[in-house]
């Protein structure tokens, strides 16, 4: 199992319960706005503590309420592309990209794939919406993650950029064989990338 998730959390007055188990490749998390997709990713990444349940990714237990296991986020090794970009405003694009990287060996390659090479010297605040999004994708990819959590990573990208970013994600999926959990509202995107779909809400 790539993802073996069974979590409960209380959000805004009601209980959110999400449970699924999925094999390798790309798993699509699909569901209406407010269903709890982002909350689920947060729980897998270790940013939100479930009230009960467990989170296992690639046979590694990241959280287990019963067993008292709760790895801190930095030891979970998730490559998380947030729904908002969350770039570090005090670091230039280059430093943002390299924040979680062991070395800058793959910087040029990733920057070229995502078409952000000309932006390396810029401050995040001067980026357009789509540019910031691509930098956020690059930052997650460069951190050598064990798995990817992508929260609508392709929204606000035009068709060409979307195609390139999609290919970058496919390459990660195929080459490194990383488990990927992807949130999207776009059926075409889900069809093309997803190996299976999990419905939330």
């Amino acid at each position: 199992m790539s993802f073996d998730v069974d979590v409960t959390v209380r959000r805004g007055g009601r209980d959110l319960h999400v449970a699924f188990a999925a094999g390798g490749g790309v798993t699509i998390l699909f569901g209406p706005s407010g269903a709890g997709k982002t909350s689920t990713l947060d729980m897998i990444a270790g940013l939100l503590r479930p009230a009960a349940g467990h989170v296992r990714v690639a046979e590694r237990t990241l959280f287990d309420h019963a067993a008292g296991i709760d790895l801190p986020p930095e030891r979970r090794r998730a490559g998380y592309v947030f729904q908002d970009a969350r770039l570090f405003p005090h670091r230039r694009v280059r430093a943002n990209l390299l924040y979680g990287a062991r070395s800058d060996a793959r910087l040029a390659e990733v920057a070229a794939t995502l078409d952000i090479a000309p932006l390396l010297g810029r401050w995040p605040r001067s980026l357009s919406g789509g540019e910031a999004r691509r930098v956020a994708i690059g930052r997650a990819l460069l951190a050598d993650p064990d798995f990817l959590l992508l929260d609508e990573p392709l929204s606000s990208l035009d068709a060409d950029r979307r195609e390139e970013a999609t290919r970058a994600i496919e390459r990660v999926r195929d080459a490194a064989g990383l488990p990927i959990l992807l949130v999207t509202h776009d059926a075409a995107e889900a069809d093309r990338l997803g190996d299976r779909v999990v419905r939330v809400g």
Partner: protein
Amino acid sequence: MEDVAGIVRLSLLVGLVATAAALPVAFALAWVLARWRFPGKVLLDGLVHLPLVVPPVVTGWLLLIAFAPEGPLGSIGDRVLFRWTGAAIAAAVMALPLMVRAMRLSIEGVDRRLEQAARTLGASRWRAYATVTLPLALPGVLAGAMLGFARSLGEFGATITFVSNVPGETQTLPLAIYAALQRPGGEALVWRLAAVSVALSLAALVASEALARRAGRGVHVL
């Protein structure tokens, strides 16, 4: 007696040492107050504010009691009483509440989701703190340092009560101004010394503004 250069040198020494020494303490306190919840937090907060509320003379007197031979810190009293080190201690204590407030305000303003982003990228709690929270709180740290330094330059009551007014050791600018004020006709010297104080703090201000501008180039991103 009117060794203005010597007085300025001493004031700078005392002010810089006091600010440098208080900075990490203030920052740790600011962090604890901004980010932790614990019983007795209000008490700690109150304790930090104490030197602001209690008249400086009382603070100086409490320091004197603490460092007196029979006081709790009496063992190092000799290295402090009537010495510039004692003046620096008094200045640091008086500056602390101002520094803590400014830093705390900035730490509370840092978006915690950025710290979370850093954690998912493999940063430990401490690394996230050092590489994200601290630099984003830098305007407050600088403002705190600036306030602390300015306050140190102006510190009078606690200093004269604690370590007296010893020329060349504890006679900083404010104490020299006090001495001049006590002399009939000392006004000319008072003006000169006050002008020097103002010039020093203006220079510090300009420096801190420049630093803050450099540090604040980012901030606020989508």
